[in-house]
């Protein structure tokens, strides 16, 4: 069927400037540029990944949105009309990549941070210590000591703790969804910055063996690559129940992406689809989850914290409480804006709740039940900037998780075509000629720079708040104020409206 869909973007080539080097043709992985005596764009294929424009030595290429106007209708937006056309042509579910792009309220942008004036001095992070160190893992309610005088020693044995030099870890992105070079870059950066990367559900490639103390290994419903060696070669183990971009549904890595290497890592035959079922078929309720948590703890000799990752859904607070009581050391909550390599658009854009509200509800619930100390809270699902990290920690998170932001740092332009496997930046692809484009060393440098910059920014904010340790911000909602929020949202976030003092 001939597609009636108009092009989304127009590629403009300035033929005066173009010196026909064809670099754009070679770089375009979406077949949107051809060469017939001169550079000829194929606009319908363009996804606005900016690869051609970035690499054109003459700056001869610009990309604009197709100005094709539709007869105005607030109700029948162009996007809705285009989706209907797509489905009328294909009969399929609309697939998409990355996080929810819809204009739902972003609560981060409705919260403002306090600062010191006069009565308590702000602190200069360039001159005074400013501590970001964070430990993930279950904490006892209290410590017991023995002995007396100068001979006091600790009696309490703490559950395993994982040290983070900065309270930001890289999100779960599987080898399969992203390339091995992207995985390597994340692992290198995690090691250098004293934080963690997360294998996602695709197993651990043998090339990452040197980084295992900085790697979260995931156990998802497909159980790809899970062996006792895999579980033990880790900083901590994460059971993936859900993902913010697609709560309640499984995953599907198409067979064409399952080459030799991925087949080995995932422990499935070459060319077969890697299917992650929607639920874990051995977890149909909370007591089953508890069994899996303890099976993993037994396998790892109680030396690794076990995290459980869930999507932020309506009843997230009660679910999180159950997870903590089931024995998890960490609860990872992924908000409805969280990214994905591939998800049905209907799920990505319409299911789940914002991470800000989910986090506030979970932290408060665990406090009310007196069990907040029993698990660390990690949150992700669109942490876009260091200010979001600060606000998340003030709401009660122990640390934040960044996926999309880390991809952008490596070169991603958020074109949302991860599911096609054509990523021009060598990130969300398995095609060797594309993967090669991502230099792991350089990508790691960029990731380290991003974390370093965010770390400095967080320190600036702490200093302006007059505190010099991140734990004095953690859960300190008194230092946040809402702007333009209704009372219900303020109550859920546990913050006052701007203009109200103490």
């Amino acid at each position, binding site marked *: 069927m001939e597609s009636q869909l108009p092009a989304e973007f127009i590629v403009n080539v300035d033929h005066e400037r173009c010196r026909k080097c064809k670099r754009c043709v070679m770089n375009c992985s979406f077949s949107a540029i051809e060469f017939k005596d001169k550079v000829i764009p194929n606009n319908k294929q363009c996804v606005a990944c900016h690869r051609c424009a970035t690499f054109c030595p003459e700056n001869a290429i610009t990309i604009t949105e197709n100005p094709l106007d539709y007869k105005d209708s607030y109700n029948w937006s162009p996007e809705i009309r285009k989706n209907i056309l797509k489905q009328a042509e294909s009969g399929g579910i609309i697939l998409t990549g990355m996080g929810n792009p819809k204009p739902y309220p972003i609560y981060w942008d409705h919260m403002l941070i306090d600062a*010191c004036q*006069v*009565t*308590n*001095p702000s*602190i200069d992070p360039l001159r*005074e*210590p400013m*501590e970001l*160190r964070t*430990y993930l*893992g279950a*904490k*006892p309610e*209290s*410590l*017991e*000591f023995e002995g*007396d005088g100068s001979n*006091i*020693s*600790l009696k*309490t044995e*703490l559950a395993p*703790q994982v040290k983070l030099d900065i309270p930001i870890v890289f999100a779960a992105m599987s080898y399969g969804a992203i390339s091995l070079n992207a995985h390597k870059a994340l692992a290198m950066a995690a090691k250098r910055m004293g934080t963690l990367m997360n294998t996602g559900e695709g197993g651990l490639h043998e090339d990452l063996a040197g980084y295992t103390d900085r790697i979260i290994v995931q156990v998802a419903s497909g159980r790809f690559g899970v062996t006792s060696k895999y579980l033990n070669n880790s900083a901590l183990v994460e059971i993936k129940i859900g993902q913010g971009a697609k709560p309640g549904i499984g995953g599907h890595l198409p067979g064409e992406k399952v080459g030799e290497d991925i087949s080995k890592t995932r422990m499935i035959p070459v060319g077969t689809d890697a299917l992650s079922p929607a639920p874990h078929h051995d977890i149909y309720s909370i007591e089953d989850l508890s069994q899996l948590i303890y099976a993993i703890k037994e396998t790892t000799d109680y030396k690794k914290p076990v995290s459980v990752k869930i999507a932020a859904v309506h009843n997230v607070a009660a679910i999180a409480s159950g997870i903590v009581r089931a024995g998890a050391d960490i609860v990872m909550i992924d908000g409805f804006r969280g990214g994905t390599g591939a998800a049905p658009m209907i799920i990505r854009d319409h299911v789940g709740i914002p991470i800000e509200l989910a986090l506030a509800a979970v932290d408060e619930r665990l*406090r009310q039940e*007196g069990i*907040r*100390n029993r698990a660390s809270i990690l949150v992700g699902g669109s942490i876009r900037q260091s200010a979001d990290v600060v606000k998340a920690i003030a709401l009660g998170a122990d640390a934040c998780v960044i996926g999309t932001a880390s991809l952008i740092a490596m070169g991603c332009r958020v074109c949302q075509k991860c599911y096609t496997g054509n990523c021009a930046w060598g990130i969300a692809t398995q095609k060797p000629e594309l993967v090669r484009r991502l230099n792991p060393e350089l990508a790691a440098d960029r990731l380290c720079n991003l974390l370093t910059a965010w770390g400095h920014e967080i320190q600036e904010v702490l200093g302006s*708040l*007059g*505190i*010099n*340790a991140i*734990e*004095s*911000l*953690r*859960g*300190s*909602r*008194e*230092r946040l104020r809402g702007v333009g929020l209704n009372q219900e949202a303020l109550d859920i976030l546990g913050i006052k409206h701007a203009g109200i*003092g*103490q």
Partner: protein
Amino acid sequence: MKCDGIPSGCAISGLMSEEGRRIDGSVVIKSIACMHDRSNGLGGGFAAYGIYPKRKDMYAFHMMFDNMKAKENTEEFFKNYFNVDKDEAIPTRRQKGVTNPPILWRYFLEVPENKLEFQSERDYVTKTVMKINSDIEGSFVASSGKNMGAFKGVGYPEDIGEFYKLEEYSAYIWTSHGRFPTNTPGWWGGAHPFTLLDWSVVHNGEISSYGINKRYLEMFGYKLELRTDTEVIAYLFDLLVRKHKLPVEKAVQALAATFWKDIDRMEPEQKKVATALRQVYGSTLLNGPFSIILGHSRGMIGLNDRIKLRPMTAARKDDMLYMASEESAIREIAPDLDEVWSPRAGTPVFGKLRPEVE
């Protein structure tokens, strides 16, 4: 001796005899008066230990009532929760600079045996204090410890001291506070010291981590009603030392935590302890500028925040330990000292009653 004060917010001064000798209240008044310019007349107060030897085993409740109705309601409450051994007005005199005092009354209370089936006596008393402060309109517990009491109100500290006739009391520990309130309104209950059981805190500074300290305490059932950051200090000591039974030194180390850069250089066993304290008690870290003097029945603890953003000087003379915002306030009452020093940031000064002293 000339008193050279530096104008700055809030003053604290404390003194104790480690041999348990009783000192009358005029001494501490003289010391705190020396730092007059550090207060603004919106709050002053004192804590005194050892002042009720005849009833030393009873809980001495110093109460503030807004009106007779509050007093009646509270007395009804006491009847249900305690055996009241004695009650009387707290003696006061008319004093210039002290206006509109609430009704000030003290009660000597015993806990009936049958109330303690499922909880300790001190937990029981703590709960009643929280209940009165949050549930009985116009009624406020100024102090609730044994053989001690808090005397506080709105005014300059020296005027408050005269008002309460403190020269008539003798105590082995005195702490005092002159207030320059910024964040919270000046009201009688809001003056320092803040107390719970026999803990008392006088505090110069601001707890910038108040938000999380408060939420942490609430997890353990504490109700923070006083609209001020200082009460978290008293409650944190109560939680860590009384309930969690941490050695006092370790509790102090949790509140003014060692920097990671220093922890990383420690010997393994010390490092393990310091790391665990920060991991488990991160929410108790008192962050922001403070100098505090904490009183309890067996001693006195002085502590600065971990980068020393508020002043504190300590001194010793024979069995006496002195601590104050300014050296001048110590010299004023003890010109000739054996030793004077500025405690380092985050490093506590302990005054301990000799073990043989009852």
